[in-house]
């Protein structure tokens, strides 16, 4: 958009805010291997040969994380979580990217990558504990190669790049996957991360889930050109993939990670998708976007798409879907009981990990705290 210098009225629309955010019209340079209708299509650069088992595995992953997400939203409504950031609609982007990782690769998530956590073998309860306010995430980032959730927008991109510089120094054939949102692309630190990755040719892939919104602010406020084009300005490849097509995401991310492992440096992936739910359980999207937009995107549902492909292709039968359904019920039940039954942390926890070597002054504060609590007869464990 171009602002007329003559009037202030049009100086600052959120450009395109009015227009609904529709999926890229076919024919646009977006990598797709599975149409919204579930038909397999070929792409000149990105092929994927994948067997029925793997396809069913991807379906199962997406179905289970969606159920986890629904259960978490319900638990928040019932007061069992402080807040929840839903991944609804982004299952293909997250599962596709997560499954593209080799075991020895490392991922740096935002706060919404529950689907990636799942693929890394992170126990959902270790994510729930963060949103319940028990801790800042209970999983072991070293063992899972899945770094802590990062809430300060974009900060993890520099961590991922630095980690990748470490991988280079170790001479290891590993890659790093940095997750970020469309809004995050405006943070200075995120752009610095791309500048560093290019300068050092670090083995890091920036995986941007463009879900069209940063809370209420539409993509157009962050960039007036497609996000994947940002990378070229920094001197490395950018590619846009249909983020609701798990196969395309898997293929594109795999290729980028492999290139990184081979020393070809960074890639920026824009996974074009849609946040079908609210930003978080505290948000009310009706204030800033049209219901029709959501309806449009429901036709591109990432799970329905793969299900159609599996069914029509005879790659999965009703029994399979029933089993997954049952698994989902089990998972949901486990998450519910595990969350509700989660013990509160020991109050002294807050003192115990501030430093690797605690200072005498903080140790004294801890002692005072314990004594003070005891004075109320509260049995604070030491």
């Amino acid at each position: 958009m171009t602002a007329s210098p003559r009037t202030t009225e049009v100086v600052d629309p959120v450009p395109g805010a009015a227009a609904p955010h529709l999926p890229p019209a076919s024919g646009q340079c977006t990598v797709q291997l599975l149409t919204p209708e579930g038909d397999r299509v070929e792409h000149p650069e990105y092929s994927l040969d994948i067997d029925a088992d793997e396809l069913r595995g991807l379906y199962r992953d997406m179905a289970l994380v969606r159920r986890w997400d629904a259960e978490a939203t319900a638990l928040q409504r019932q007061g069992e979580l402080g807040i929840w950031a839903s991944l609804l609609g982004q299952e293909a982007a997250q599962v596709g990217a997560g499954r593209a990782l080799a075991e020895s690769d490392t991922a740096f998530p935002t706060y919404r990558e529950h689907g990636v956590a799942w693929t890394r073998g992170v126990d959902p309860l270790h994510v729930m504990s963060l949103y319940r306010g028990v801790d800042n995430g209970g999983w072991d980032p070293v063992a899972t190669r899945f770094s802590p959730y990062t809430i300060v927008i974009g900060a993890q991109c520099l961590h991922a790049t630095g980690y990748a510089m470490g991988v280079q120094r170790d001479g290891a054939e590993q890659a790093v996957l940095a997750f970020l949102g469309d809004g995050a692309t405006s943070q200075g630190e995120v752009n610095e991360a791309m500048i560093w990755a290019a300068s050092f040719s670090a083995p890091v892939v920036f995986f941007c889930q463009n879900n069209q919104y940063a809370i209420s602010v539409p993509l157009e406020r962050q960039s007036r050109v497609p996000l994947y084009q940002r990378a070229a300005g920094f001197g490395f490849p950018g590619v846009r993939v249909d983020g609701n097509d798990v196969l395309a995401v898997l293929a594109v991310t795999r290729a980028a990670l492999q290139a990184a492992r081979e020393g070809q440096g960074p890639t920026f992936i824009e996974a074009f998708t849609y946040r079908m739910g609210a930003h978080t359980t505290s948000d009310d999207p009706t204030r800033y976007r049209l219901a029709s937009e959501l309806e449009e995107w429901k036709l591109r549902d990432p799970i329905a798409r793969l299900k159609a492909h599996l069914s029509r292709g005879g790659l999965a039968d009703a029994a399979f879907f029933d089993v997954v359904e049952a698994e989902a019920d089990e998972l949901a039940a486990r998450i519910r009981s595990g969350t509700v039954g989660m013990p509160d942390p020991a109050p002294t926890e807050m003192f115990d990990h501030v430093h690797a070597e605690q200072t005498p002054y903080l140790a004294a504060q801890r002692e005072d705290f314990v004594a003070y609590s005891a004075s109320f007869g509260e049995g604070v464990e030491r």
Partner: protein
Amino acid sequence: MSTETLTIARALNLGLRKAMEDDAKVVLMGEDIGRLGGVFRITDGLQKDFGEARVVDTPLAEAGIVGTAVGLAMRGYRPVCEIQFDGFVFPACNQIVTQVARMHARSKGRLPMPIVIRIPFGGGIGAVEHHSESPEAYFAHTAGLKVVAVSNPADAYWGIQQAIASPDPIVFLEPKRRYWEKADVDLDAIPGPLFASRVVRGGDDVTVLAYGPMVKTALQAAEAAAGEGRSLEVFDLRSVSPLDLDPVMASVRRTGRCVVVHEAPTSLGLGAEIAARITESCFHSLEAPVLRVGGYDTPYPPSKLEEEYLPDLDRVLDAVDRAMEF
């Protein structure tokens, strides 16, 4: 006389609206403040009424928000920046500390910086990491900045207008956990000065100082203490920088005892500066050292522990006891 019962959130919204009506140069900038009205709805309805040129939904970049505000101020505008949560002010640190705070001095007064940086601050809302911080000491230590913290709807309504009208840059701290607390506000009253402290409860035994969300806590403590026959004089400091301590010192010379309360980590929190100044000025009147009740020297904990972390009525009373027994 028109008096309305307002929450702090609503008072801020009305105060911003009034400031925008009074001065066409006032521009609001921030993440999600337009269409959404801000995550706390402080700017609710303002973009609809004042247009997108005056209520700007910005890209997601705090340095950008404050840095462009500097340029707008140079052009004669009065930018009001909203930082969505206290924990997200740090990307703007460089612009705030090296630019906003110094442009007036650097230009020998030729470039005033009438910029207000609104920050919902403090804990107690059960939020995740970075949403419950109290960063005021960083700004109070920065020469060239002024820092105020409001505690009630009337100060919110008048304070935001006074801050916007001020020619100097002001970090304006809003007690997010008190956003929804109500009080009567006389919209025709003549407001007192922005940078003045205020006695909110008279007393004789101990002088208790607080600002922002802790004022209510201090008042609750005073109420409880009264039950035990102890009379606390409670001050709402209101301005964190500059500090208005003369009335406080007069009180301390009377009571001989002083307790400072804030949520920020105690080490190098405002309590440190206040204790140092009061001790220097009231040395011979002090019956006990100035005692500090603050957050522990740890990162703000996960929300299940925030009640243990935050100063509360009991911790204030405990400090009062220690001051009395000293």
